[in-house]
């Protein structure tokens, strides 16, 4: 991503953000609320239109036409803060919808994928349940499985645990950790600092619509250079 600018009306939310993510890399974005982290993530797969700036995948520039946007969304999975499962569909239907409609995969293959993904997120017995019958943590794990069913090259996580009760956060984080161990390329926006430190290859600190600092987690969390990073980390750690 190069020099992403995004405004909502007169409010400039992103003031030129450039981020390069390598294959297999886990990048965690942290920063105070309102700094543009989530907006930036949504710009990556163009859920928000960017005013200015370019997105590249595997070196190819993504154009703003429908075909490119759809191809790219099929290549990059996304997990939302509020899960956004389809409430009128069962777990099986939620996960299989993308492969069936967008990829046109045969049913046999879809069934295999759904079964293995449900096993991976530890919810095989919930295949025929509806989202409202599941806890928040279970819903988020299904949402991860739904994104993975598209066989994405990379995954975006937009504060995946912010809407969860504290006791349910762990089960979601452990699924994400498994993905990291398997070498999935991921960009994660989170407020879970311990998790960020543990999982990330690189931490990006955003404030006020810009990246103010980035580096390996050990350095960012122990010896940040930017005063704003220090203030932010202190305020987060005080809360805990």
């Amino acid at each position: 991503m190069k020099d992403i600018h995004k405004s909502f009306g007169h409010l400039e939310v992103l003031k030129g953000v450039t981020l390069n993510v390598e294959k297999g890399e886990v990048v965690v974005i942290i920063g105070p609320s309102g700094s543009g982290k989530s907006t930036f993530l949504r710009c990556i797969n163009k859920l928000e239109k960017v005013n200015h700036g370019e997105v590249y995948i595997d070196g190819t520039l993504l154009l703003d036409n429908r075909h490119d946007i759809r191809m790219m969304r099929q290549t990059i999975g996304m997990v939302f803060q509020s899960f956004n499962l389809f409430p009128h569909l069962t777990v099986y239907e939620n996960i299989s919808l993308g492969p069936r409609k967008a990829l046109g995969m045969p049913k046999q293959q879809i069934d295999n994928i759904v079964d293995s993904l449900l096993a991976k997120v530890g919810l095989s017995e919930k295949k025929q349940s509806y989202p409202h019958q599941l806890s928040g943590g279970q819903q988020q794990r299904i949402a991860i499985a739904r994104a993975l069913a598209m066989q994405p090259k990379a995954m975006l996580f937009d504060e995946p645990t912010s809407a969860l009760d504290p006791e349910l956060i762990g089960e979601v984080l452990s699924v994400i950790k498994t993905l990291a161990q398997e070498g999935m390329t991921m960009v994660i926006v989170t407020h879970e600092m311990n998790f960020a430190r543990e999982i990330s290859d690189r931490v990006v600190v955003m404030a006020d619509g810009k990246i103010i600092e980035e580096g390996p987690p050990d350095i960012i969390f122990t010896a940040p250079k930017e005063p704003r990073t220090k203030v932010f980390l202190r305020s987060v750690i005080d809360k805990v």
Partner: protein
Amino acid sequence: MNLSAVWEYRIVIIQGFLVTLQLSGLAIICSTLFGFLSGFFLSGPSRILRYPFKIYVEVFRGSPLLLQLFMIFFGFPYLGIPITLFQTAIFVFTLYGGAYIAEIVRSGIESIPKGQFDAAASIGLTYPQTMITVILPQAMRVSLPPLVGFYIGLIKDTSIASVIGYMEVVKEGQAVINVTSRPFDVYIVISILYFIICYPLSLFVTWIERKTQTL
């Protein structure tokens, strides 16, 4: 009350009632098709497509049905376009009903959280796929009660077509009154006939409302 005079002309009333049923059925089908289409465009992403439909809805909701029937039935021949009673009725009820249904569909679609659109987009669905598989099934839960409620109104509104001479049940009833001079008896019978179609629909609304509440 003496229904024997009405009974004598039962064939006429039944004939009118069948016409009312036919007109109601066609009005519901055509206005639903056109209303859903308009509702999609009203809530759709394209501004160029949205505005003409917005104007259409406001125009047809903003003028009396009676006037619309007059305008088309007398206005079209005046402009040199021949139009039959049947064509007028179908044309007007489609546009009139479509305008209300478009608003019902639009508000149903807009009641669906934006996250549902995001999630559907994030798994690569196209806009039509998103509408059909994700948004509409959820929007219908919201829209079905007001939709069926509107159908009840539309069935009763078909009686207005009698003023341009459409031979539906009210118009046929008036013919029977002319012969029998028993307006009260005839109108009572016709009211009961309307009630027989509308009441089950009303029960149906209550039933789906109860059913969707438990979900």
